[in-house]
């Protein structure tokens, strides 16, 4: 019998394999036996690749998990997924350390002692959900339903929609997300100028010039993995013909290092630079006149229906932001400003984009609008290579529900009332809870949220949590906030649950990925979607009727039906089973190409055009009683029409410059989102962070270190008016002199209950854009003191 015959006979035998040997116990130098429990005893040697979606960040990359005998041993990118195309970021790679994390909460637990005592008692799911349902039912019965607050850390997808639905029926307006503390500026600029309250998308593959304002494209941009792939296309071709990427930022970040050009700038002055560039474009008549004429509103001066004259964008920019003034404010030379403007015109389509953190200052909304407005001047909106509006996949809607009247009550965080332009104001919650105004908070559900650690005023959060009668956390791991909870209902990790994933906007055309469990749940945990459905049922009417599905998976599957027979879909299917198989095989569902230049549906503003002058802002501000007085008390310098236009005013910083000489530049790195990946050892030990990567580092310019007589690697106290934190001093040549760079999200693991400042966020003075509620990440002054001195 020849070899070929054997090969034929063997057919497609399972390839690859597992070999586990024991070692001779007498030999102390023998390598350790591959420590895989269970397999020595029983090996069926079953290996499979499970198609799923990553959940380590909101990008929603398609993944394939290698599962050997029920154990997930490897996660790789799905080659077919349009987002990552086979690649996967470091967070995604280390997902197994989350799944098999030794500190995971193994079953629902109830507090078995006073708040914060750390004493817990395991309870059954029925008992835990029954208890919460009882409390919420009672709350609703006595007309206090609006006292329920859900703090939801998931930016997009099924879960936020389920929470919305639940609160709508239960009767509470308080679905608070984290946007105002992350990328709220960008979303608000889109909401007021485009009419679409969503992150912008871009046609990455066809753009020819990218001007990033602190845009951490390769670190913490929501779609960094897609960006890495897109940037490989930018790098094709000869200089002058290929894409140029210019990064403007105070800190020399990884993205700045990888950009074609880096322009250092004074912190908090991005808006002035953008308006300076706009000035040059308008002055030289280099802007896209046709586009501005056909599709925008508020460029020239105009008169409203009552005949009152209003200022236009052209007037504001021409009069107030000549390049000389922009140069003086930003520290970028006039020559550079003129050159960048010329380059953008010469390399059309060019996009201008900001990072969430860049627009996070007390002048956040104006800054984000200014950066956004450049795109309209260049006429690249809705055009190939330009800026797009993320289109939603045609998912079938859930049956409509009857909203409770109380769901229309004013929000407890003041968004829309105290802060007329805000859509959410998470950092204002502790104050609202402690003061009991506008009304007391009766119950708080923390879903993917750890505000004590990730938000400013950590101590205040602790006090606030203690004041709320019922605090429930859905965290799969213990954290600073679960310490103060009454009940913890641990969620599945993303490798254990079934759901539809809507990735954060990036490419414009609709993309979906499907998350399917790679392994059986390791512990007695439950997907929060399931927990919510069970909770809604246990409460009874009216929420039970609004959640008719058997479980979270069927709720998702009901929506998937909308994809059947969709036009231009990457997965053509006629039955749900076929669709699922198709998505698994393709690594995701998408609908390409993007419908360019469809002007009818592009803008959802009041004028149905791109609004340089936002009429929505004007309308909102007109509703504010005593606007002038309010603006005065909030410290807003801008008045009148300028508030509705892209504008810039000097940022305000917390702390006296004499006492606190340094500016704090808080940023998000590749490995630490603001929520933190500090529980994942692989991400705490990345070689580029150096050998002190496990410590929290204060990045200081070497000259400043020398002046302060601090040695690199020595410990310092970084002190702000809000708090102080012991950190390791790192000499960082890329940090702007006079600033201290601190990465958000790093911190101790396991979390410490008694720490005064639980995370670097506690250093931040809790300041926000006074009208829009955007947390000023760039708004704190600090001083640095040698430890022990």
């Amino acid at each position, binding site marked *: 019998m020849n070899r070929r015959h054997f090969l034929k006979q063997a057919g497609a035998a399972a390839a*690859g394999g597992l070999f586990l040997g024991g070692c001779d116990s007498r030999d102390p130098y023998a390598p350790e036996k591959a*420590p895989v429990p269970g397999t020595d005893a029983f090996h069926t040697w079953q290996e499979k690749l499970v198609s799923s979606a990553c959940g380590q960040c909101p990008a929603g990359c398609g993944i394939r998990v290698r599962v050997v005998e029920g154990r997930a041993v490897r996660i790789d990118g799905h080659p077919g997924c349009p987002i990552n195309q086979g690649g996967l970021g*470091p967070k995604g790679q280390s997902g197994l350390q989350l799944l098999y994390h030794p500190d995971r909460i193994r079953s629902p637990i109830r507090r078995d002692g006073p708040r914060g005592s750390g004493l817990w008692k395991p309870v059954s799911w029925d008992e835990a959900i029954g208890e919460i349902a009882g409390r919420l039912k009672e709350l609703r019965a006595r007309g206090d339903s609006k006292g329920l607050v859900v703090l939801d850390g998931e930016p997009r997808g099924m879960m936020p929609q389920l929470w919305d639905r639940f609160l709508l029926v239960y009767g509470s307006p308080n679905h608070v997300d984290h946007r105002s503390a992350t990328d709220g500026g960008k979303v608000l600029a889109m909401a007021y100028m485009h009419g679409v309250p969503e992150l912008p998308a871009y046609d990455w593959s066809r753009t020819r010039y990218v001007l990033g304002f602190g845009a951490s494209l390769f670190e913490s941009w929501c779609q960094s993995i897609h960006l*890495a792939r897109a940037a490989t296309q930018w790098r094709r071709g000869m200089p002058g013909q290929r894409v140029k990427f210019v990064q403007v930022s105070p800190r020399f970040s990884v993205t700045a290092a990888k950009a074609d050009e880096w322009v250092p700038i004074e912190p908090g002055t991005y808006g002035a630079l953008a308006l300076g560039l706009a000035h040059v474009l308008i002055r030289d008549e280099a802007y896209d006149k046709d586009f501005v004429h056909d599709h925008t509103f508020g460029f020239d001066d105009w008169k409203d229906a009552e005949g009152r004259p209003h200022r236009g964008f052209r007037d504001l920019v021409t009069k107030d932001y000549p390049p000389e003034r922009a140069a003086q404010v930003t520290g970028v030379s006039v020559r550079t400003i003129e050159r960048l403007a010329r380059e953008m015109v010469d390399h059309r389509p060019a996009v201008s984009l900001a990072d969430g953190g860049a627009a996070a200052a007390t002048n956040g909304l104006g800054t984000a609008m200014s950066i956004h407005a450049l795109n309209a001047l260049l006429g690249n909106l809705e055009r190939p290579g330009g800026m797009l509006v993320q289109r939603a996949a045609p998912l079938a809607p859930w049956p409509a529900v009857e909203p409770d009247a109380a769901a229309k009550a004013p929000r407890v965080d003041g968004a829309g009332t105290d802060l007329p332009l805000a859509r959410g104001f998470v950092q204002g919650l502790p104050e609202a809870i402690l003061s009991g105004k506008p009304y007391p908070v009766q119950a708080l559900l923390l879903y993917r949220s750890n505000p004590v650690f990730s938000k400013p005023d950590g101590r205040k959060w602790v006090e606030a949590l203690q004041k709320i009668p019922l605090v429930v956390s859905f965290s799969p791991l213990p954290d600073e906030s679960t310490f103060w909870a009454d009940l913890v209902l641990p969620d599945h990790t993303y490798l254990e649950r079934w759901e539809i994933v809507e990735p954060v906007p990036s490419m414009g055309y609709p993309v979906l990925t499907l998350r399917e469990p790679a392994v059986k749940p390791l512990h007695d945990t439950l997907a929060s979607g399931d927990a919510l459905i069970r909770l809604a049922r246990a409460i009874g009417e009216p929420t039970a009727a609004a959640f008719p599905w058997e479980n979270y998976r069927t709720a998702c599957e009901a929506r998937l039906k909308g994809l059947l027979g969709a036009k231009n879909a990457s997965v053509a299917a006629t039955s749900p089973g076929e669709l699922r198989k198709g998505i698994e095989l393709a690594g995701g569902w998408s609908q390409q190409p993007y419908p360019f230049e469809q002007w009818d549906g592009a803008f959802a503003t009041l004028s149905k055009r791109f609004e340089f002058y936002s009429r929505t802002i004007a309308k909102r501000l007109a509703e504010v009683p005593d606007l002038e007085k309010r603006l005065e008390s909030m410290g807003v310098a801008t008045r009148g029409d300028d508030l509705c236009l892209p504008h810039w005013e000097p940022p305000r910083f917390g702390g006296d410059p004499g006492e606190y000489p340094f500016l704090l530049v808080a940023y998000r790195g590749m490995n630490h989102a603001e929520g933190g990946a500090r529980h994942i050892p692989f991400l705490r030990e990345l070689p580029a962070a150096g050998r002190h990567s496990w410590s929290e580092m204060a990045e200081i310019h070497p000259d400043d270190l020398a002046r302060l007589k601090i040695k690199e690697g020595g410990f310092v106290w970084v002190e702000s008016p809000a708090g102080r934190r012991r950190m390791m001093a790192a000499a960082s040549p*890329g940090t702007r002199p006079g600033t201290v760079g601190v990465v958000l999200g790093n911190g101790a693991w396991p979390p410490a209950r008694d720490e005064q400042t639980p995370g670097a966020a506690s250093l931040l003075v809790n300041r926000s854009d006074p009208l829009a509620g955007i947390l000023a990440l760039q708004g704190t002054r600090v001083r640095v003191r040698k430890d022990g001195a």
Partner: protein
Amino acid sequence: MAEQPSRRGVLGTILSALAAPFLLPGKLFAALRSPRKPKWGMVIDLDRCTGCQSCVVACRVENNVPVAGPELNEQDRAIFWMDMLTVPEGKYPDLRTQFIPVPCNHCENAPCVKACPVHATYINEEGIVAQIWGRCIGCRYCTTACPYSRRYFNWKAPVWSESQKQYLNPDVATRPVGVVEKCTLCHHRIRARRMKARLEGRELTDADVRKLPACAQSCPADAITFGDLNDPESEVSLLSRSPRAFKLLEELGTHPKLTYLREAKWKE
């Protein structure tokens, strides 16, 4: 009586036999030889790399490299088969930073192999500089000899909690304390892929191996390419002949099989 071959005839036969290899078409000649062994090599495009360090984590997960923890890491004793060198240059605001992912260079003239007193490290028939953990006596001569510092000594026994043991890759042995370990070019993946190809009745192709090692597969920027340097048409061969190509510390004469691509930074 059989006809004697003429003198001229014999000479002609010998000459044509000698000339045959040169006259025959190259491909036919290659087919006549014994099956060609591949020589594995890698190309890393620094212009594409975005410094995300996904390759670093992918390598550690795939090869069961233990996490060092704060103490060992402070002592620079953490193990990174795939490391990310950051080379900052200049003074604010005239700054430049190079991010260089460095796995083992798999030198053809490897200093580590010469230094090993017990033949625990050698260059295998496919060009992989291999380390046989079981044979290593932990003298660390090789870590000293390697000009790229791509060899790591296990200063402590690796520790995994019971739950963490679950995710260990069953295809790669864990290493004990006291031995030196290094990049294997994901040899176990090559082996498995070759097995699969043979079951399908064929040999490995360039498309099979282009993204085979864990680092290459995970790279979001598609900056890492792997392949057979003996195949002049493979992508890795083509790229390693690019005008952008350079090797690390070429002047040492180690002849690395790892090539980097980089061009001067685009400036106005």
